[in-house]
């Protein structure tokens, strides 16, 4: 049981080729804008017809180009949460939720509306129109409307992108609670790395219309297989590499030699390290210690990003090798120390990456 997708669709600028499977846990589709992730969802829901391929949901063939099967959208039983919620502006909250329940009698309808209103904490808003609701409330109505028809799969297209930062984290938590009750296949599309990590168990990384990587989210972030996946999962520091010996590599862009713990697979072309994995060297460190100078810094509320030049003084603010993220408190201790600083790039934290 689950969702099987293997589709091809020619689009202006690129060809979408998405293939993956999803079971009971929430699957995240992570990709930059224009990577084809929304289009993939639309193909699954039946809003857009793929050129080729197969889509199977719980053993039901929804689309099969070889057999000429293309189940219309309204018979797929797939709930879709649109980025802008797409509520019916001419209907009240109640009417929105009930819209997919046309064939039921009044009593059944009311029961389902009540259950969904309660689950989504929309009590008291039943008679309001969408324009009288806040963004978060609108989203809950949209989710209630999608879940009212008891869909076999739920597709979420960047559901939090229209919410402000404060609401977002609040809604994410609520979302998780709701999704806990939902027993169908859930697909979650986002370009936001933190959202993907927080909400999904497994991830499919899409780039340029192709599946770049697929697997458990932990692996996706700590052991990304490719340069692209590493970029999409938030790694900031990359260098082309040359292998010197079994575990020694030369980072060509950084101009340093490094020990790497990871056993290389074939076709390694780059290495990367997360900005928050860089740290000051301690007394017990013996390997991968380098002198560095800050080129410039950029500040955010709780952390500092320091752009550092390794091995020599920077000539200009643009002359840096690595981005280093540290907590504000640590930065206050660090900033007055004499230059250069000793940093350590732990052999266990360096990631070897394939180019595509």
């Amino acid at each position, binding site marked *: 049981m689950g969702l099987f997708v293997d589709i091809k669709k020619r689009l202006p600028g690129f060809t979408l080729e998405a293939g993956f499977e999803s079971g009971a846990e929430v699957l995240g589709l992570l990709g930059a804008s224009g990577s084809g992730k929304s289009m993939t969802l639309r193909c699954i829901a039946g809003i857009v017809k793929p050129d080729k391929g197969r889509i199977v949901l719980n053993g039901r063939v929804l689309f099969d180009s070889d057999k000429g099967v293309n189940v219309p*959208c309204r018979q797929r039983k797939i709930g879709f949460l649109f*980025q802008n919620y797409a*509520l019916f502006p001419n209907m009240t909250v109640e009417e929105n939720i009930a819209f997919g329940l046309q064939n039921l009698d009044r009593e059944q309808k009311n029961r389902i509306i009540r259950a969904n209103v309660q689950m989504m904490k929309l009590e008291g808003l039943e008679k309001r129109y969408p*324009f009288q609701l806040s963004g978060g409330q609108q989203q809950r109505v949209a989710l209630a409307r999608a879940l009212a028809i008891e869909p076999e799969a739920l597709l979420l297209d960047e559901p939090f992108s229209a919410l402000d930062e404060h609401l977002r984290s609040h809604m994410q938590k609520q979302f998780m609670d709701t999704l806990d009750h939902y027993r169908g296949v859930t697909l979650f599309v986002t370009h936001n790395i933190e959202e993907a990590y927080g909400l999904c168990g497994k991830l499919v990384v899409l780039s340029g219309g192709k599946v770049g990587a697929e697997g458990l989210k932990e692996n996706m972030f700590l052991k990304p297989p490719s340069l692209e996946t590493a970029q999409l999962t938030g790694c900031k520091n990359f260098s082309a590499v040359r292998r010197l010996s079994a575990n020694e590599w030369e980072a060509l862009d950084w101009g340093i030699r490094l020990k790497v713990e990871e056993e290389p697979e074939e076709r390694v072309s780059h290495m990367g390290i997360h900005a928050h994995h860089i740290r000051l060297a301690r007394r017990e460190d013996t390997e991968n210690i380098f002198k560095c100078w800050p080129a410039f810094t950029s500040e955010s509320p709780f952390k500092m990003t320091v752009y550092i030049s390794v091995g020599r003084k920077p000539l200009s603010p643009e002359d840096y090798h690595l981005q280093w993220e540290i907590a504000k408190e640590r930065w206050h201790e660090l900033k007055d120390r004499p230059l250069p600083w000793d940093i350590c790039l732990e052999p266990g934290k360096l990631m070897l990456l394939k180019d595509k």
Partner: protein
Amino acid sequence: MDMDFSPLWISVKTALTATLVTFFFGLAAAWLVAGYRGKLKGLIDGVLTLPMVLPPTVVGFFLLVFFGKNGPAGKLLHALGTQVIFSWPATVIAASVVAFPLMYKTSRGALEQIDENIVNAARTLGVSEWKIFWKVTVPLAWPGIAAGTVLAFARALGEFGATLMIAGNIPGKTQTIPLAIFFAAEGGEMEKALAWVVFIFAVSLVVMTLMNYWTEYQAKIIPRNRRR
């Protein structure tokens, strides 16, 4: 002045019937063209808009050929033992054809403004296309559809050239107000002509003004409704 009021009733009856006919045909055409993605879109749109830009006599000429004794529709009607040329239905046909593009153009514009996601959302909920059209699409495009209907009504009320060609000027039967004005003026009955002129002038002005205020009112409400 000896006033015959039959043109008023004929005009109102014709304009209302033509508006009703145009409403459904115009809306259907608008919906089909709005959803059509092919290469012929420009051509189809051109053909459907033609009655608005062609001289009414040209439209009348085509209708005369089409519904005349030897025309395709005329032959069919003849076989059924009837004909429309120089009868009251001819005034409705002329007014409908000339008013059609206004209904079509205006409601098509409104249909194309609708957020496609809203219609797609309705589809994922398992609702039939027919129901989606009447419960979602039409309400969302309503300001435009209503405006198109009003414009079509005003145009149907003022139709002259095509009507004269296929319905003629038969007092009490096909003589609408615009025809009455023309023949009164031509016959030197300027006072009678003026009375009808004032009437048409007033009705058209009132209708258009009301529509403007209504559009303004809608514009205040709808954007809030459609906030994304």
